[in-house]
């Protein structure tokens, strides 16, 4: 396709070629670079112990990081309006993958859950990562048009037509299709099982629904239901009960801290021994086969140990800035679709960061949530950067401030 000259472009097209948001881009790059460095630092003892080259994990992560950044730029150049149409396909594909992962996936032997699926060229990845994006994209695309959406009416002779009209007016009926989609995805993911992924999908979807203006009582009701469900799971099921005891006292795991509390204890040792300034980059001791998953879910503990409270705080502040800038882009977005898309992605990122750090520091009982940009995992990083690309794409169409 021959590149069109600027004057030949429509207003729309000109807008789509606006400048991308530099602060957001810088934050993404900084976090990615720090994340890849931390993967190197935290993974080499594990790699050596597995008989691999010390740089094995680092090289892989750096490669994916580079590809991911390139992909992010490509996506940022795409006019995000095209995502409206794509969203149905992304959601559809992710649901198909979530179905396929059950018979064809893998992961049961390593983590006890069928979460990964291997595709040609792409390699192994978690369909749930795609599902998160798919849900957000689809919800944003559809909810951005909710004011123009035709309200189905029952024939007036229908006995329930009055009730239906009343419910419709009160907004009761509106979110039901979304709930059905969320429910389907959630059920599929719980079959893997993938509790933490389910939570993130629900959070992503809910944030878009919330921002789009779904009546608040749904959230109060949903929040109450979630709280009740959580309370039930915590108190009535043994699965959560053990997690809860370990949360209260990691040493009380029946094996004196060598059983299920071990990872958490090691994480606390790492964080605690970091002190104010840390033991120095690369000098973590806990990564020497003490802290399991030190390059993955628990990488933030190594950050705390090596860089201290100061380093950890700076990383969190970077995340906060990223999130704030994300919402800034959302409220300045050119249209509702862009706004909702960015709100979904940003909220998802924020919640993921919060949950990961809260687990690592034992603020909340453990769930297996990885830290965006940091945790080892090539496709996850790529998908994360692709999401960032979408945000940047939205940022390009922010109208420039009027020059008087």
């Amino acid at each position, binding site marked *: 396709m021959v590149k069109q000259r600027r004057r030949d472009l*429509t207003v*729309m097209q000109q807008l789509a070629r606006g400048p991308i948001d530099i602060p957001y881009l810088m934050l993404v790059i900084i976090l990615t670079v720090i994340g890849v460095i931390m993967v190197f630092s935290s993974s080499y*003892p594990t790699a050596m*112990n597995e008989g691999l080259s010390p740089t094995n994990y680092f090289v892989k992560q750096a490669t994916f990081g580079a590809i991911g950044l390139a992909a992010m730029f490509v996506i940022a150049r795409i006019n995000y*309006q095209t995502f*409206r*149409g794509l969203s149905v396909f992304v959601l559809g594909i992710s649901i198909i993958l979530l179905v396929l992962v059950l018979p064809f996936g893998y992961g049961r032997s390593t983590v006890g859950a069928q979460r990964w699926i291997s595709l040609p060229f792409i390699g192994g990845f978690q369909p749930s990562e795609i599902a998160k994006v798919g849900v957000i994209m689809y919800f944003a695309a559809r909810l*951005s*048009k*909710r*004011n*123009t959406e035709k309200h189905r009416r029952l024939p007036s002779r229908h006995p329930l037509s009055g009730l239906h009209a009343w419910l419709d007016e009160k907004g009761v009926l509106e979110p039901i299709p979304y709930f059905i989609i969320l429910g389907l995805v959630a059920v599929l993911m719980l079959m893997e099982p993938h509790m933490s992924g389910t939570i993130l999908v629900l959070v992503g979807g809910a*944030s878009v629904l*919330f*921002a*789009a*203006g779904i009546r608040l009582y749904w959230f109060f009701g949903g929040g109450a239901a979630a709280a009740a469900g959580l309370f039930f799971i915590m108190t009535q099921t043994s699965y959560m009960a053990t997690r809860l005891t370990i949360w209260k006292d990691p040493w009380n795991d029946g094996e004196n801290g060598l059983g299920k509390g071990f990872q958490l204890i090691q994480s*606390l*040792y*790492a*964080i*605690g*021994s*970091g*002190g*104010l300034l840390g033991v120095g980059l690369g000098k973590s*001791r*806990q990564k*020497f*086969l*003490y802290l399991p998953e030190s390059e993955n879910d628990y990488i933030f503990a190594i950050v*705390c140990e090596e860089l*201290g*409270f100061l380093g*950890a*705080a700076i990383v*969190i502040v970077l*995340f*906060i800035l990223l*999130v*704030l800038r994300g*919402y*800034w882009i959302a*409220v300045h977005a050119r*249209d*509702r*679709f862009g*706004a*909702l898309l960015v*709100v979904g992605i*940003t*909220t998802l990122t*924020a*919640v993921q960061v*919060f949950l990961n*750090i*809260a687990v690592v*520091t*034992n*603020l909340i009982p453990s769930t297996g949530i990885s830290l965006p940009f940091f945790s080892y995992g090539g496709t996850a990083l790529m998908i994360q950067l692709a999401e960032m690309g979408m945000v940047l794409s939205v940022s390009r169409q922010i109208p420039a401030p009027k020059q008087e």
Partner: protein
Amino acid sequence: MAQRNRGRRIIRQKPDRKANRVIFIRSLILMGVFGCLAFLPLFVKLWQLQITDHDYYQELAVKQQTRDSTVTANRGTIYDSNGTVLAMSATVYNIQLSPNDLRETQETYREKVEKAQESGGSLPDYPEPTNEFIASNLAAILDLDEADILRRLEKDSQYEMIKWRVDTEESDAVQEFITENHLSHGIYLMPTSKRYYPKNSLAAQVIGWVNPNMDNVGAYGLEAQFEDELSGQTGRIVTAKDGNGTELLYRFEDYYDAMDGNDLTLTLDATIQSFCESVVQEGVEQFEVQNGAFCLVMDPNTGAILAWANSPTYDLNDPWEISDPVLLQYIEDVKSGAYTEEEAYQKALAEGCTQEEAYDKAVDAAVGNAQLSQWRNKAINDTYEPGSTFKSMVLAAALEEGVVTESDHFYCSGSVMVEGYGSPIKCSNRSGHKDQDLATAVANSCNPAFIEIGQRLGAEKFYDYLEDFGFLGPTNIDVQGESASGGQIIWSRESFTNVDLAVASFGQRFNVTPLQLITAASAVINGGHLMQPYVVSQISDSDGNVLQHTEPTEVRQVVSEETSARCRAILEKVVDGGTGKNAAVEGYRIGGKTGSSETTETGRTIVSFLGFAPADDPQVVVLLAYDNPKPVSPGANVTSGGWYIGGGSMAGLKAGELLEDILDYLGVEKSYSATDDVLVPDVTGMTVEQATEALKQNNLTLRTVGEGDTITGQIPANGASIPGGSQVVVYLGVDVPTDQVQVPNVIGLTAEQAQAKLAEVDLYLRVSGASQYGDNVVSYEQSVTAGTLVDRGSTIEVRFNDATASGEGL
């Protein structure tokens, strides 16, 4: 076109202020919640973990991340004053088996054999390391039970320690066995440290020992007292390890050097110490002493302890082993019947044990008592009534205060009444010493005279001197066991009555430690200086740098130089013909004071002698005491060996022998005496006149045999050393007899009688002990047993003492 159409459709999304506003507000709400609020608890939690609880987590983390291995420091050596090693540490080995490793070794052997059989190569040139082979060899080398080793070899175990701290000889043999039979994978020699006491029991109660069962920490004596100096600083190697326990040698390595312990140099002299110990041990046997003995030797001028012996004693290399004959007898007695008298037996029965159990408990208790008794340093842990030896201090105080002079006379009727006490206080001589001057009163150890001296001093002054001589507090010696108060059991100043003063004047009814007594006595004779006694003269580090050198410390001047000199003169008379005459040594000027202490136990006497020499310039002061010599029958005053139970006849006698040995060893010059040994000149070929003249120059006389002018032979031969004043036999034309003669028995004879008897067979008498004082002094020991054949002209040394009541020396 399609794209454009889609674009147009998109543009058709209608601007909707209300919808936009909802999104705007709700996005801001999400921004507030997830962009700010949610992260606050994370900061709080991180602050709590990393700042507030940092130390707690760091400590736990470091504990799991590091391996802390210790490097043992070498314990310091203890030397005597001449550099003789009294205690040292050496590396020895524990023998450890690893049954699991040995199985691998056995497997390797079998593989070798198989391989050799397959390829036709040669078989291993050493025997198959079967369990039986290993067990039987190790049992032989280490003197262990073969079946036990075999049983442990069959265990599924990584480590089996089969013998601890083996001698070098055994560990070398094990090493050789390992090398010869290729067993380095399975039998291990683990280095550890062992304390050696090369002189065995020498100064056992002073040096003390380390307890190998408790990390070689000093348990008794100087080993315990100077634990901090001797033990050194254990070193540490801190290495990082990973979660699997593998050492990360290139990271976080910290090395804290082990600091070897410091060496102690003592004032004790191993030679003098061994003199003391043999004198103590001889006396215990000779006098049938039942409750042990002690002997202290001190340099009176510095307070340095030269020797410190106790009985019963033990081998420091095995402190639990009981080897003292008296203690062994005690245990034997308990086992064979006396157990019913043991407290433990009665207690066990009362607690409902069977007779057998009670018996076992009684025997165990007896062994325990015996061990405690042999570890006990009597001369500092225990107190005793000083008895008459204390009169030296009373004498010094009285002379210093001017209440008596040498010209004063005291009358002793055999007893004296003291105001405030109902019955007369008796003197040891019941018929009384009659009139005596001061020196005689001291030499007689006359109680009434000392009661009068005490009265002249007065209670107040007397008590002042008790204090000044150090009897009311500790000597502050650097030896374990002195009680903080000093240990003495004595009246308080307020309750010190006239009667107390009277008995205290002759050393009774109060208790002091032997160390307090010898320290005070030193002050009496050294010019009046009360010195602080000490045993450790120097502490030096392992490189020989002196860290601390003990300088003699004068506590105070108690009496003047002049008073001290007068005391020395008077006390010399005690040995020179007084109650202490048995301590006399030919050629040396010895002063001293005898003592016999009553105890609360009936029939138990502690006989002691306080001696010093040379009397005019004391170099050593000795306190020797035997606790409870066994009377031949209850109430008797002699032992079954005929020894009179008294300070002079027992302690004085042995102290004389001891002082002679010490003075000879120290090289103190003997004063001239007519009976000193002289060399016999060659008189063969001379005329009788010439020979008489030549011999006279050497303080010798001659007796001729045969007739003629020229001397053809002589006995003893040229160059022999015989006592001065002896007769040389010269032969005039007669052959010198070359046969040997039988030594006659001269025991029980006076010096004159012995000399005559020996001269009959051409033998010479060398006298030692109390020789010149009256008919009571008879020989009790001769250097060559009667009946032995010796050359004519040999010298026989004979020891004399006064074994009768007049030499009792109370």
